[in-house]
């Protein structure tokens, strides 16, 4: 069974949907039922991070092996990662409006996320600015290798050094300090896997289409 992980993805997605709406949640003020967004909003960012890790790894692989197929993988995973990031921003805005009172609050984590998205947007502009294929691949691979740690700084490091409305930021948080209870973990971790697998699936399709284009142009 070559496509077992696609079936796993489907099963986990349906599990996320059903358990995400029906499993018991801690009754917290302000958040109320909206804490279930954890399975849908936070997982978008996890999916984005996983995609950006893959694209960085394949950038390094391209730099060490000079294989243009690696460059295709790095690019397509970065695109899907951006889609996840946009979904994360939009869902976060809806959640913020209903719990913090505004679509965009002046929060380190929000501004950091926006800055990280701009860094990756610059990656695509950089790609579009060069026509020569191997040159484009090399420059953008180097850029991606630097973009990833920058994004981590903007999303994870800076919000912790100052403070953020996001739980677990400011000071030195551990995962146990989140407003998570064990029931929520039962849904949250499978949900991360489910959404990430869905993204990987879409990315692999994009990679295959891109490779077909290249074959057709030859």
């Amino acid at each position, binding site marked *: 069974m070559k496509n077992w992980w*696609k079936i796993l993805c*489907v099963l986990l*997605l*349906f599990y996320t*949907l*059903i358990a995400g*709406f*029906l499993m018991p949640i801690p009754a917290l003020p302000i958040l109320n039922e909206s804490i279930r967004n954890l399975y849908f909003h936070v997982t978008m960012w996890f999916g984005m991070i996983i995609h950006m890790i893959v694209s960085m790894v394949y950038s390094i692989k391209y730099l060490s092996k000079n294989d243009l197929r690696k460059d295709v993988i790095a690019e397509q995973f970065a695109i899907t990662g951006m889609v996840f990031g946009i979904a994360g921003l939009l869902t976060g805005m809806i959640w913020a409006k209903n719990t913090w009172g505004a679509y965009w609050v002046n929060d380190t984590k929000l501004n950091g996320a926006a800055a990280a998205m701009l860094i990756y947007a610059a990656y695509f502009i950089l790609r579009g600015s060069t026509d020569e294929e191997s040159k484009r691949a090399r420059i953008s691979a180097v850029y991606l290798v630097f973009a990833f740690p920058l994004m981590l700084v903007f999303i994870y490091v800076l919000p912790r050094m100052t403070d953020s409305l996001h739980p677990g930021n400011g000071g030195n948080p551990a995962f146990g300090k989140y407003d998570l209870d064990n029931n929520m973990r039962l849904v949250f971790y499978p949900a991360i896997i489910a959404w990430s697998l869905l993204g990987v*699936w*879409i990315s692999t*399709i994009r990679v*295959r*289409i891109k490779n*077909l284009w290249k*074959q*057709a142009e030859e």
Partner: protein
Amino acid sequence: MDIYYTRQNKKFMETGRRIKTLLSFLFSFMLSIPVFAQDVEMADVMRSNGKIYVVITVLGIVLAVLLIYLFSIDSKVKKLEEKMKNRK
């Protein structure tokens, strides 16, 4: 004065009787509801718990349709890949 009081009393008793009949009517109506529900089987599954199951079903259908779509795109790409392979 006495007459006045008895008149008030009469009026009071009358309203009391009215409330009693109203209450008993309501109570009998309330009693009849569970009996009614037992007698007639209704499709109540989707209506319980604030209709959240309806939302889950709708979202489930959306997800299923999108995933089937993704599978079909996947197989189309696969067919194209095989076609390109045979051409070479």
